[in-house]
């Protein structure tokens, strides 16, 4: 397709915003936006243009518990993860035993009887794990704990991906630079994580991949155990 054609670009952006551009075509436009300022501008213009129609809907007051869930997910995870320190010792000891390929290392520690489980430790260097991934039994959220010193490049974010066997990478969200983040999983993300045998971390523009697929260098690939 000739993406230089401004009319075509504008129509693709319009269908992206409407939501009728789906599947591979949607991902292609995502990738195009990562590279093309013109595509991004076309997208943003349609997003702006259509917003009044969203404003025209009668606002609906959320149930009171929604705000509580937001703050619990963002700020309240420390209290919900007792015993993390003990497991961290486990994970570091295990990390030392893992042979890294190039700069890539990952390891699995399965402790099925102790929720939440740690199911992956991510690091670019086996002596320096950066993040550990935990999940509660329900798989409603993925808890990401920073366990190392995460160097943030200006204008870049680290994005976590589920790599389903034989499928496209599915974003699991941005990795935090500090602290602990309980990242809620959508149904699609849960499905991808259940089907995944590896997770990966890529370096993306701030805000994450604009395309829905990794666009920057993949710095970590780590096998993960099958999730029930």
């Amino acid at each position: 397709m000739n993406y230089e054609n401004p009319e075509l670009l504008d129509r693709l952006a319009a269908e992206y915003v409407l939501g009728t551009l789906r599947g591979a075509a949607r991902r292609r436009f995502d990738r195009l936006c990562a590279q093309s300022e013109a595509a991004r501008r076309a997208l943003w213009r349609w997003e702006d243009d259509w917003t009044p129609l969203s404003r025209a809907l009668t606002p609906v007051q959320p149930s009171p518990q929604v705000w509580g869930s937001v703050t619990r997910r963002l700020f309240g995870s420390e209290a919900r993860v007792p015993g993390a320190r003990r497991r961290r010792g486990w994970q570091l000891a295990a990390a030392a035993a893992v042979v890294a390929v190039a700069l890539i290392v990952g390891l699995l520690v399965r402790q099925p009887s102790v929720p939440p489980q740690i199911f992956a430790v991510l690091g670019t260097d086996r002596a320096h794990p950066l993040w550990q991934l935990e999940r509660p039994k329900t798989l409603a959220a993925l808890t990401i704990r920073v366990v190392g010193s995460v160097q943030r490049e200006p204008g870049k974010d680290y994005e976590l991906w589920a790599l389903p066997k034989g499928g496209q990478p599915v974003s699991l969200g941005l990795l935090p630079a500090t602290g602990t983040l309980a990242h809620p999983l959508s149904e699609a993300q849960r499905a991808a994580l259940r089907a995944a045998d590896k997770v990966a971390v890529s370096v993306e523009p701030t805000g994450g991949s604009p395309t829905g697929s990794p666009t920057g260098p993949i710095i970590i690939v780590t096998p993960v155990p099958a999730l029930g």
Partner: protein
Amino acid sequence: MSRTEGRPPTHPPAPAPEPERAELEALLARCAAGDRSALESLYTRVAPILLAVLIRMLRRRDVAEDALQDVFVSVWQRAQQFDPIRGRPLAWLVSMARYRAIDLQRARRPAVALTEVSALEPQLQSAGPGESGDLYGMGGPLLRCLEQIAAPQRRCLVLAYEDGLTHSEIARAVNEPLGTVKSWMRRSLTALRRCLES
């Protein structure tokens, strides 16, 4: 309804007070700086708008409220990436909600039955542009331009934007062949862009 001073012309007066662009930008900047109270203020201002969008697209309040949580978690994580150059903050927030809903719909797609689409009909007829007094009264280039598009074609656009239906689902909802719907939408979008630029 009266316009709020300084509002960009494409934002019509709305049933609820329009969150001001500058105010939302300031709240996002404070979120980016780690100010939790700013997230709460932002939530108070825009969560009801986003929830309306999500309920319309996801059709179930519980699913929509889960998605709303996801959106606000993302808002906090990504606040520092909001660039006022990219567009209006409300468009950024609404887009985040809509794209989340589209992702969730994709996962739930097999559950979307024709009967559900049909059950939507009365709601659409009462709320589509051209049928709603609110929308008529709101003005703004988008609504003015939508009104210039013939009703069946306009309905396809609204089914896509507000309800998040795919081409095939729209074709079933309006009982027209898929090819017709696709070419209607192509032509309507070209006409819409031309009108928006005029």
